[in-house]
């Protein structure tokens, strides 16, 4: 690149300034670099232009920008002006120029750097003058024959132009920097392959065996540290120890320990040691102070907190009336009916079952018995969503007077008939119908808009008649109307003797009923599981009575149908006489749990559904031998009778020592409190042992362990009480229904001598009251009346929500009443004693008087006798029977 650089530098030097003396050896610049080696740029000054007649814009114009100049003119100019001449640089070219005329072109655009350029070759001149014609010719030629022939021009090799790539190749190539050294090692051939022996050798022993480079302290690199910055901290002494153990396999390690204790002798010795005595003496002082402080007052009580009632009341506090919510009447029945028993469905919201009976007296029943047989006796299922149509109708052979849902399976219903039979229904197959009750809400609205006569029985909401599953045996059951029926709790079961065993099946499988049979007043215990046939007679009987059952009736209780006998019977005898009490209602120990544990029932029913086999479809009789007997089970229960007595008795049989038969036990206590039939005996849902009895014209509350009398006995009410029920959420509230359609709400915290409120519900006698909890904010009470209407009322907030200390207050009240009873008892005793003493005194007084008069009387008698003797004597003398002389002997004889 050196020559080019030189050219460039020479070009730079040759700026448009006049050229100074340059050597004649210098080559002229040509445009070889631009591909035109024949072009030599020139600068022509105005003088030169005048000489050669190539003045810009005068001689040389745009149309003719060139001028042919004679060679000899140039030479003349050169001689004249020598170095100053503009043609000096191209002098050599001019000299070498073959032709005579040189072409000088005006470079207007300074294409080649200067304002003129000289063409140094003939060909160039020719090309310059002629090329435009050639190109024009070529263009014309091209127009005629467009793209017809592609003329192949083979590439012409040009000389290689170095562009600097050699350097990179040089750098990238690997060359040997030093010359390779070759060694040639030779050895005698005989020495190859000989065994080699290696041995150790100390390097230092052999001279020149190694070369070492020893380290030495270099003074240049040693720095003396003059200052050191160190942080200090005081820490407790820490010891860190770790070990590694051999853990061959995982193994559980447990530690078992027992506390250290003193043996009895040690304790005795310690007790007698003086230090202990001194310690106790000193310590007990402060301990007793502390104990007394606590007894005096509770210092941690927040008085403000205890003053306030519970917040968040829902609804108006002053509103204490029961609000009418809905009422149900069966409009399709031909005769007038009354409602005998009401029961809410334990799990489904808004479903209530009602048993209806014909409203006729006994005589009328007998009179119309033919007509009554044609009408089915029903239990109706009402739902809140449809007040006109009952959801389900359960058929029974006769009017039902009481019924109950089974607590462990709400699809089993047991009812007691007027003729003394127990009827069982199983509505498992229709359970889905009543569960989706709420879905049909819209339809029911439409139904209510239509007038009644348009309501077709073929409407979708047609209620289904469900036949009963089983009835009890007529001969062995009750003879009179069954007044009360209960399911026994699923925690226990009883056998024929009345002894209690634990119930393994987990379901309620036993019932107890009571009825006022004329001759034999009974409570009967029934078992719904199949009993083993005792005698072949019964099986024959079964075959005879094999009535065909319609196919849509479930066969749950097929084994019981018409052959169901009670398990045990309990008679309530009145002592020596052969008369019995006539029970109307009973109350067992654990009934109160049914009200509270709704969640329990739900859970149970859910599990029952989850199982493939419903336990009720798979009943097996329990074997009492294998079941464990429950000891200390209270088998006592309360019975209310037709005469108004409340009896507390035992159902367990005991052996009569004289006859050896099993006899029922005598009642523990008997009280005649009520003036009429006892129609409600109910345990409080909050207390195990508080019982409410309603009958006649008054109400009584009892405590189970207190047998002296009722805790509370109300005075006679103006109207007869016909039904009663505890409130489910407030321990001191209960509802009593009267025969004039009023409901009395008693609140023991407010008044105990009369009801707190009285509200009119209907115009006739109230036959049944049943409250029910749906949610914490919604409580309903179902009131059934004599005319067959079921009223559903909503319990206001005040009546459903217990106050904060209500439970404790009621507890206190009952305790006070118990104490009052005890006091009364004691007083009675004292009074009796006093009375006795008084009587004794009276008697003593009488005795003394009597004694005194006795002596007097004897004296008087004696005198009378003597006077009589004298009289006799005088009379005999007068008669002449006795002589005067004989008088003395006669009197002596006398």
């Amino acid at each position, binding site marked *: 690149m050196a020559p080019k650089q030189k050219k460039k530098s020479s070009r730079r030097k040759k700026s448009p300034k006049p050229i100074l003396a340059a050597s004649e050896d210098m080559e002229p610049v040509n445009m070889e670099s631009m591909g035109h080696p024949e072009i030599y740029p020139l600068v022509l000054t105005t003088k030169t232009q005048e000489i050669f007649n190539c003045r810009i814009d005068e001689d040389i114009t745009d149309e003719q920008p060139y001028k042919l100049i004679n060679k000899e003119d140039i030479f003349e100019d050169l001689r004249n002006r020598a170095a100053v001449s503009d043609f000096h640089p191209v002098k050599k070219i001019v000299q070498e120029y073959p032709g005579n005329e040189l072409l000088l072109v005006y470079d207007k655009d300074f294409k080649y750097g200067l304002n003129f350029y000289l063409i140094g070759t003939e060909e160039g001149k020719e090309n310059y003058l002629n090329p435009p014609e050639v190109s024009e010719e070529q263009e014309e030629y091209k127009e005629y024959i467009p793209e017809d022939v592609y003329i192949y021009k083979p590439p012409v090799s040009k000389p290689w132009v170095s562009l600097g790539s050699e350097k990179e190749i040089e750098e990238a190539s690997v060359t040997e920097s030093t010359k390779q050294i070759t060694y040639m090692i030779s050895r005698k051939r005989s020495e190859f392959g000989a065994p080699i022996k290696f041995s150790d050798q100390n390097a230092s022993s052999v001279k020149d065996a190694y070369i070492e480079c020893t380290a030495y302290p270099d003074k240049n690199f040693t720095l003396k540290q003059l200052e050191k910055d160190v942080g200090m901290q005081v820490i407790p002494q820490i010891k860190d120890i770790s070990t590694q153990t051999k853990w061959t396999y995982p193994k559980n390690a447990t530690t078992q320990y027992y506390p250290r204790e003193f043996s009895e002798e040690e304790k005795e010795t310690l*007790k007698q040691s003086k*230090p202990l005595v001194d310690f106790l003496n000193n310590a007990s002082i402060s301990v007793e*102070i502390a104990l007394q402080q*606590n007894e005096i007052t509770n210092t941690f009580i927040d008085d403000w907190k205890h003053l306030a009632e519970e917040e968040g009341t829902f609804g108006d506090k002053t509103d204490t009336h029961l609000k009418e919510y809905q009422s149900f009447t069966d409009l399709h029945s031909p005769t007038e009916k009354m409602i005998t028993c009401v029961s809410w469905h334990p799990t489904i919201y808004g479903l209530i079952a009602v048993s209806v009976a014909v409203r006729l007296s006994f005589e009328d029943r007998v009179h119309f018995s033919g007509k009554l047989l044609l009408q089915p006796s029903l239990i109706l299922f009402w739902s809140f969503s449809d007040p006109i149509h009952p959801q389900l109708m359960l058929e029974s052979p006769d009017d039902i007077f009481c019924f109950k849902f089974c607590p462990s399976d709400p699809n089993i219903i047991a009812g007691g008939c007027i003729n003394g039979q127990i009827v069982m229904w199983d509505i498992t197959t229709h359970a889905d119908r009543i569960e989706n009750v709420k879905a049909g809400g819209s339809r029911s609205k439409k139904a209510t808009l239509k007038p009644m006569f348009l309501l077709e029985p073929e409407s979708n909401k047609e209620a289904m008649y469900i036949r009963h599953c089983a009835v009890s045996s007529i001969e062995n059951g009750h003879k009179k109307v069954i007044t009360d029926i209960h399911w026994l709790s699923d925690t226990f079961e009883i056998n024929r003797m009345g002894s209690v065993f634990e119930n393994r099946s987990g379901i309620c499988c036993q019932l107890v009923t009571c009825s006022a049979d004329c001759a034999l007043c009974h409570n009967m215990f029934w078992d719904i599981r199949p009993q083993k046939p005792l005698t072949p007679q019964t099986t024959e009987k079964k075959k005879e009575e094999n009535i065909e059952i319609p196919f849509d009736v479930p066969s749950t209780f097929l084994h019981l149908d018409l052959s169901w006998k009670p398990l045990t019977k309990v008679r309530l005898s009145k002592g020596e006489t052969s008369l019995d009490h006539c029970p109307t209602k009973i109350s067992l120990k654990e009934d109160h749990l049914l009200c509270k544990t709704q969640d329990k029932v739900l859970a149970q029913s859910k599990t029952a559904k989850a199982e493939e086999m419903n336990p009720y479809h798979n009943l097996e009789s329990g074997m009492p031998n294998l079941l464990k007997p429950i000891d200390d089970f209270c088998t006592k229960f309360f019975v209310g009778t037709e005469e108004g007595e409340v009896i507390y008795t035992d159902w367990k049989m005991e052996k009569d020592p004289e006859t050896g038969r099993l006899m029922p036990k005598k009642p523990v206590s008997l009280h005649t409190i009520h003036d009429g039939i006892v129609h409600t005996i109910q345990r409080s849902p909050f207390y195990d042992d508080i019982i409410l009895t309603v009958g006649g014209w008054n109400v009584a509350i009892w405590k189970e362990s207190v047998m002296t009398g009722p805790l509370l006995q109300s005075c006679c009410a103006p109207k007869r009480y016909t039904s009663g029920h505890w409130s489910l959420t407030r321990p001191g509230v209960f509802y009593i229904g009267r025969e004039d359609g009023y409901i009395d709400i008693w609140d023991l915290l407010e008044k105990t001598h009369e009801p707190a409120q009285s509200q009119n519900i209907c115009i006739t006698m109230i036959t049944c009251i049943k409250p029910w909890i749906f949610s914490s904010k919604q409580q309903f009470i179902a009131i059934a009346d004599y005319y067959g209407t079921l009223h559903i009322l909503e319990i206001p907030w005040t009546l459903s929500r217990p106050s904060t200390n209500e439970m404790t207050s009621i507890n206190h009240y009952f305790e006070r009443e118990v104490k009052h009873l005890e006091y009364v008892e004691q007083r009675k005793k004292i009074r009796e004693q006093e009375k006795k003493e008084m009587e004794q005194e009276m008697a003593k007084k009488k005795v003394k008087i009597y004694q005194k008069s006795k002596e007097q009387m004897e004296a008087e008698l004696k005198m009378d006798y003597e006077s009589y003797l004298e009289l006799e004597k005088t009379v005999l003398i007068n008669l002449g029977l006795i002589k005067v002389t004989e008088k003395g002997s006669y009197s002596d004889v006398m």
Partner: protein
Amino acid sequence: MNEWTNTDREPDPLPSSLPGPTAPGLGEPQAEVEETLKRIQSHKGVIGTMVVNAEGIPIRTTLDNSTTVQYAGLLHHLTMKAKSTVRDIDPQNDLTFLRIRSKKHEIMVAPDKEYLLIVIQNPCE
């Protein structure tokens, strides 16, 4: 404070005046111990009383064994901790009485060098 105690605290040397049917002389401190504990137990609301030695081993108790052992072990630790706390704050101070009040009842601990008296009371409602 003294007027609250309802008994006079002179130790009675004559055994005949004591109600217990113990032999005179020998049973004197034992009867006294019994009498004191009985008196404490008869206070209103007292659930249990126990005497525990310095290591937490019960000596005398009115509750069942497992409860006693549990109370003794736990309260012994707590009393030691409370004692050391009081001493740490002021080395010349010492713990005289510890009362723990909970929702259901109150536990009172009277510590000593060698023994611990624990009383559990249910304060008035």
